[in-house]
């Protein structure tokens, strides 16, 4: 009995040790970023470093908003990600409806093709994309960026939405049709309300992908007033002396929206994961 108990104690402590390690390795860098962003310049470079700012200040954030293009980048990020989500959702909701509700020739081939493009990495697409966009004369526009994000997100949103739509029982829709409702009314009053959690989760994944993107923006956007956050923040590095306090404040400000959205869809995450996951 005693031996059994000792073994149990050992496995429990190993378990908690592992869990604590997992939590710490993920959380500490963020804590450190947060801490640095509230330190005045002298304290940023202090040795030994202080873990809690001794003299906390909003100065880094104030300079971020006033002395850099941060607010413009923030606005651009919101616009581009928002439009990309809108376009992606309309197109993939229609596509998912098609793949789960109609029968037609070539349906499975199309589904397979879409899954295939899920594996394409941005770097393979972006070089020809850049040349084609220049040829079309839409380089350096948010329009090109929105299209790029949409095409990049579509395979996985379509896949995810198809899985969500497939879980909605057809009998409900058929019942509505029998009761004399048209397909459109059945869609609006029966399918969409049931699919709403899936639609919300999928749009937030799309938002996070677009919000986080670096490579498409770097290649397609050249003028400063059109840049999104990741590219804008990277350019803060190009000053002679790196202003770590300012950069950490910028990091915090980009992370907050992504994390808020992430936490709001957390509970759908595991379900969605089985259906296709997130790309990256």
């Amino acid at each position, binding site marked *: 009995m005693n031996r059994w108990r000792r073994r149990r104690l050992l496995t429990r402590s190993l378990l908690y040790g592992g869990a604590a390690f997992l939590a710490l390795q993920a959380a500490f860098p963020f804590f450190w970023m947060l801490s640095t962003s509230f330190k005045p310049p002298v304290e940023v470079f202090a040795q030994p470093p202080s873990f809690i700012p001794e003299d906390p200040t909003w100065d880094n954030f104030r300079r971020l908003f006033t002395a850099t293009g941060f607010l413009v980048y923030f606005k651009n990020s919101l616009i581009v990600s928002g439009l990309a989500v809108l376009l992606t959702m309309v197109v993939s909701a*229609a596509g998912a409806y098609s793949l789960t509700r109609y*029968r037609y020739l070539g349906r499975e081939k199309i589904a397979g093709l879409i899954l295939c*493009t899920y594996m394409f*990495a941005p770097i393979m697409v972006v*070089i020809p994309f850049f040349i084609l966009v220049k040829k079309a004369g839409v380089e350096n526009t948010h329009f090109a960026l929105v299209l790029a994000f*949409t095409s990049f997100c579509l395979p996985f949103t379509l896949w995810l939405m198809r899985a969500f739509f497939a879980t909605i029982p057809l009998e409900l829709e058929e019942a509505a049709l029998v009761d004399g409702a048209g*397909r459109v009314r059945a869609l609006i009053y029966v399918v969409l309300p049931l699919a709403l959690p899936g639609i919300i989760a999928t749009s937030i994944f799309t938002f996070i992908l677009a919000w986080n993107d670096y490579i498409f923006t770097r290649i397609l956007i050249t003028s400063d007033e059109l840049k999104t956050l990741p590219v804008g923040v990277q350019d803060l590095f190009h000053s002679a002396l790196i202003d770590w306090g300012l*950069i950490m404040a910028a990091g915090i400000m980009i992370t907050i929206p992504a*994390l808020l959205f992430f936490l709001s869809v957390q509970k759908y995450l595991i379900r969605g994961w089985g259906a296709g996951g997130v790309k990256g």
Partner: protein
Amino acid sequence: MIGVSYPESKPVELSGARPGSGANFPGSGFARRGWIPATTPERRQQWMGWLTIAPALFLILALTLYPVAYSIWLSLLEKHSFFPQERFIGLENYFYLWKDEEFWTSLWLGTVYSMWTILFQIILGVAAALILNETFVGRGLVRAIVLFPYMIPTIVAVILWKWLLNDTYGVVNYWLFAFGIIRDPMSWLGADHIMLSVIVMSIWQFFPFVLLSILARLQTIPPELYEAAKVDGASAIRRFLNVTLPQIRGILFVVILLRSIWMFTKFDTVWLMGEGAGAGRFIRTLPVYAYMRTLTYYQAGLGAALAVIMFAILIVCTIIYFRMFREEADIG
């Protein structure tokens, strides 16, 4: 029957559920016909089906498949990235790369980078999934926190790690020094250690993907299997090998495939870590090299040739992978 365009004997339903019946008289096919409500004639089905998938199909064809096909053509041209002139030169870009030392170096560096990151992502991801599948106080919180690194923009992960690893003011050097592990500050982003740094940072950023995929699968394993193994007196390691591993084999197959593709083509993490560090050329992997040929040297043709080579390597490796693990492919 109106407009039957394919034989009913070949069911096209997803996952083969609810096979359709050939009968079309009232009341027979309603539940059994599954995906199509009986009120819709089949010709209309065809039209509506194609119409609703068309926008998605168009976008994928025009914005992903066409560019990839175009890059094959582009790789046969000598083309400046910003000027419209172009000249057909056949396979000359490929011949150039064959003799280009930097190409071979980048291929090697890319292989080193992806091998190490994939290996440790899988090991850490599976181990972490096993831990988070147990019950303990605060599990929900740890499950949420552990995914943070995967959800943040790469640029944030990069500035975080550059700050942690800063040679003079970084907290990593401070700790290593304080614990007496090193005597002089290590230059983590210098030529000697930058590969190690970018590998560690990439593992940190991407193993949550493995964790989440495996965890989702672990949750569906029926507990009876473990009960039975326990009754038989199997040790924890035996239970993992005999019960867990066969169950997660299918998803592991898919996860390794996806992670390999994405790590081999990983651009932003590697590029941003190398940029401005002065030692960037020691982590100049194939994707970074393709980008630089296109946007630093303005040789779009060469850049496209590199992208095509990358694509070809991936296809060959994927085929070999499927051949090697045919059984898992069936389960996955």
